[in-house]
C-alpha cells in the first residue's frame, strides 16, 4: 500500500492520542525508536508490512494512516485559501501551513471550516447577484425608467393644474386625462416591479443561480432521474414543481435538461448501454462506432447512469461556445470552480477549439495526492451556422477517476488558476494565491 508524505504525521498523532511512548511502539513492532522518530517526522516512507504492524498496534485501519483526509475537505480548504486576500501576511502563513496537516489533525474543524466558507461564499454570491441586478438588469432598469417617467408626467401635469395660473377648461380636461393615464401606467409598472423583486428575495443562499439549483436537485437524486427512462415522456411540469427550484429561470433550465435527457434515453436506452458495461467503464469511441450516435450523447448518458449500474463515480462538465460552464456534475478529487472559469488546459476547452475532433486525455491534478483522471471531450453543434450567424456549439467532458499505476504523459491541469500551484503554466491567466508574493502588506 503506498504511503503518503503525511503517514508519519498521522502515526504520531494516533500514538499521542493513545498515550503510547515512542520507544514502546517501536519495540512492539521491531524497529528502533530513532527509526520510528524519522518515520513520524515524514523523513522515511514505510512499506505495507511495517505499516500494517503499526496500524494493528494502534488499533486503526492502515488505510486511515496512508490515505489521509477526505479529499473533498482538502478541496474545500483549497477553496478557502483561494478566497483569501493574497497580499496579506496571514494568507501566506495559512498557505504555508499544509491544509493536509490541518485536515488530518483536526478533521472536524476542517470540515466545519469548509462548510462555513461555502455558506459564506453562497451568501456573497447572492448579494453580488442582487447588487449586480440593480445596476445591470435591463428589465429592472426598464421598469424603473417607466415608473419615473410616469411620476414625472404626473408631477408636472398636477403642478400645472394646481398652480396659480390655471389652464383653460379644455386644457384642464386634457391634463386630467393625462394624469389618469399615467396613474394607471404607474400602478401597472409598480406591481410588475414588486413581483419581480419578490422573486429575487426568494432566492436561497448557496443556490443563487438556476444552474446551481438544478445541480443540487440532481445531486439529491444521485444524478439519475428514473422517470426519464420510460418510453413515454413523464410529466416534466410535475418534476420541476419541486420546492428546490426557487431562482428565476431554474424551472426553465430544469425543464430543458429533463427534456434533453429524456431524448438521450430514447436514443440510448439503458439496456443498450448495459451491453458495454461488462468490464468497467467502456470506451465511448467504440460506442460511437457501434451505435452511430453522437459522442456528446454517449458522454451524457454515461454520466447519468443509475448508481447501481455505473462502474464507478463519474463527473461531467458542459460548456457553451464562450467556455462558460453550463452544467457541472462534480467528482471527488477533481475540484470545480464554483464561480468563474476552470483550467484552460482541460480537454473540454481543447475540444471547443477544434469542433469535430473529440479529445481523449489523461489529466493529473496537482497536490500531495496527485489524482489522475481519464477524460473524454467532444463538441456538439446545437444549431448550424449561416452566412450571417455563427453556429451554436456545446462542449461536453466526461471525467472518470484513474486509480493505480503512474500514467506517464498525463496532462498537468488544475481546477482554477487562482488556487493552482503550477506557477510556470503557460495558460495561467491570474496569479495563484499559493505563489510567494514579491511584497507583502502588513495589517
Amino acid at each position: 500500500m503506498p504511503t503518503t508524505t503525511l503517514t508519519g504525521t498521522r502515526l504520531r498523532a494516533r500514538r499521542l492520542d493513545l498515550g503510547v511512548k515512542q520507544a514502546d511502539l517501536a519495540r512492539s513492532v521491531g524497529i528502533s525508536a530513532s527509526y520510528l522518530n524519522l518515520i513520524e517526522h515524514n523523513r522515511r516512507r514505510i512499506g505495507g508490512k511495517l505499516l500494517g504492524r503499526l496500524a494493528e498496534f494502534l488499533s486503526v485501519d492502515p488505510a486511515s494512516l496512508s490515505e489521509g483526509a477526505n479529499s473533498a475537505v482538502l478541496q474545500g480548504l483549497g477553496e478557502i485559501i483561494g478566497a483569501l486576500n493574497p497580499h496579506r501576511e496571514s494568507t501566506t502563513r495559512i498557505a504555508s501551513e499544509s491544509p493536509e496537516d490541518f485536515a488530518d489533525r483536526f478533521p472536524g474543524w476542517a470540515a466545519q471550516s469548509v462548510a462555513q466558507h461555502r455558506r459564506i461564499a453562497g451568501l456573497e454570491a447572492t448579494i453580488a447577484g442582487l447588487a449586480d441586478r440593480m445596476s445591470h438588469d435591463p428589465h429592472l432598469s426598464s421598469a424603473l425608467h417607466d415608473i419615473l417617467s410616469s411620476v414625472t408626467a404626473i408631477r408636472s401635469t398636477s403642478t400645472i393644474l394646481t398652480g396659480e395660473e390655471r389652464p383653460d377648461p379644455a386644457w384642464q380636461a386634457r391634463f386630467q386625462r393625462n394624469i389618469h393615464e399615467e396613474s394607471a401606467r404607474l400602478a401597472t409598472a409598480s406591481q410588475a416591479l414588486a413581483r419581480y423583486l419578490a422573486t429575487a428575495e426568494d432566492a436561497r443562499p448557496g443556490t443563487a443561480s438556476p444552474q446551481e439549483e438544478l445541480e443540487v436537485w440532481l445531486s439529491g437524486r444521485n444524478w439519475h432521474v428514473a422517470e426519464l427512462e420510460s418510453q413515454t415522456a413523464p410529466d416534466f411540469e410535475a418534476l420541476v414543481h419541486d420546492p428546490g427550484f426557487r431562482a428565476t429561470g431554474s424551472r426553465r433550465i430544469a425543464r430543458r435538461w429533463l427534456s434533453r435527457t429524456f431524448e438521450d434515453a430514447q436514443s440510448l436506452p439503458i439496456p443498450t448501454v448495459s451491453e458495454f458495461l461488462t468490464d468497467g467503464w467502456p470506451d465511448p469511441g467504440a460506442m460511437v462506432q457501434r451505435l452511430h450516435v453522437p459522442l456528446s450523447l454517449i458522454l451524457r448518458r454515461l454520466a447519468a447512469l443509475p448508481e447501481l449500474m455505473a462502474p464507478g463515480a463519474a463527473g461531467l462538465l458542459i460548456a457553451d461556445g464562450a467556455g462558460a460552464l453550463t452544467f457541472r456534475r462534480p467528482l471527488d478529487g477533481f475540484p470545480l470552480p464554483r464561480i468563474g472559469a476552470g483550467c484552460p488546459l482541460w480537454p473540454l476547452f481543447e475540444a471547443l477549439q477544434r469542433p469535430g475532433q473529440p479529445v481523449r486525455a489523461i489529466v493529473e491534478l496537482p497536490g500531495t495526492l496527485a489524482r489522475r483522471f481519464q477524460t473524454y471531450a467532444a463538441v456538439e453543434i446545437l444549431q448550424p451556422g449561416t452566412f450571417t450567424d455563427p453556429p451554436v456549439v456545446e462542449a461536453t467532458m466526461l471525467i472518470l477517476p484513474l486509480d493505480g499505476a503512474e500514467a506517464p504523459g498525463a496532462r498537468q491541469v488544475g481546477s482554477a488558476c487562482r488556487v493552482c500551484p503550477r506557477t510556470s503554466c503557460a495558460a495561467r491567466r491570474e496569479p495563484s494565491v499559493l505563489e510567494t508574493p514579491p511584497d507583502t502588506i502588513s495589517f
Partner: protein
Amino acid sequence: MAGRVLLIEDEPNIVEAIRFILSRDGWHVDVHSNGETAVAAVAERGPDVVVLDVMLPGRSGYDILADLRADTNTATLPVLMLTARGQKADRDMAMRAGANRFMTKPFANEDVLAAVRELASG
C-alpha cells in the same frame, strides 16, 4: 416671444406638460421624439435651446449630444439634459458629453423653466 426651444423627448404626457409651461412663458416649442433623426431635427429647426432626454428610441441622448458638439454649427448650442438616472456618474457623463445643464426626473416645472431662461440668455 422669448425664443425657440426644441424638446427631444418621447414620453407624450411629459412632452405635453413641458410644452404647455414653456409656451405659456412665451417660448415657441418644437417637439421631436425619435433619437435617430434628432440631430437632423436640430439642424432643421434651428432652436435657441435644446431640452434633450437621455433615454430615446433609436439613439441615446448622450450620442445625440456628442454629434451636436462635433458640429461647428451646434458646438455651443445650449442643451438641458433630462434623465431618470440621477447618479453622479450620469451627471458626469452628461457634462463630459457637453451638456450645459443636467436635470433628473421627476423635476419641478419651475426648475425647467428657469434652466431654459438661463441657457437662452447665455
